[in-house]
């Protein structure tokens, strides 16, 4: 497994863990009534901290285990895989944003709208990482 593939696994895990916790918490808050949008910042700070820690610790471990590969730059296959994943992730993002914004026509609340757009963004990111990992595994021939 290349350093780039390991890096995508770390990024996917970090996003799933941190944003997973965030959206579960948001779900609980919404179930108890729509909260004040000022709570957004209080919820996002731990998410950013956790993502940063997982990224740093994960990449340090991977770099220590295989120091030679950690310095390798993206080669043509890495770039081709990244382009493919970005194209699919972009489509997911567009669809998610349209659904999120469309839903605000029926129900408007800043907290809900911001989280709906953010969910679309995070989902698109996770799909992008997932497609990259799957393509590294399955191959990109033809």
């Amino acid at each position: 497994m290349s350093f780039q593939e390991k890096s995508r696994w770390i990024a996917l895990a970090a996003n799933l863990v941190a944003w997973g916790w965030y959206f579960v918490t948001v779900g609980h808050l919404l179930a108890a009534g729509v909260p004040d949008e000022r709570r957004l910042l209080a919820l996002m700070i731990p998410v950013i901290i956790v993502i940063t820690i997982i990224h740093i610790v994960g990449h340090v471990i991977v770099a220590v285990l295989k120091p030679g590969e950690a310095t390798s730059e993206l080669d043509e296959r890495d770039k081709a895989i990244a382009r493919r994943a970005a194209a699919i992730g972009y489509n997911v993002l567009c669809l998610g944003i349209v659904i999120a914004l469309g839903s605000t026509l029926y129900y408007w609340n800043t907290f809900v709208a911001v989280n709906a757009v953010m969910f679309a963004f995070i989902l698109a990111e996770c799909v992008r990482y997932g497609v990259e990992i799957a393509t590294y595994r399955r191959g990109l021939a033809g």
Partner: protein
Amino acid sequence: MKGKSLTNTIRTLRFHAGEMTQAELGEKIGVTRQTVAAIEQGKYSPTLETAFRIADVFGVALEDVFRWAEE
């Protein structure tokens, strides 16, 4: 065009080049060891430039490395 795919003889060429490793070949052509492995296994079709670089490393013609053949 169904039924045909890109095949290659890189593994054989590496063997005849003194058991050159995938990492060594990768270093010569500017890709990672994993990318050389993916090319060998037919999991990645390299760019034309990289294909020519591989042929150049072994001192053979492009068609001696890559073939468009029946699966």
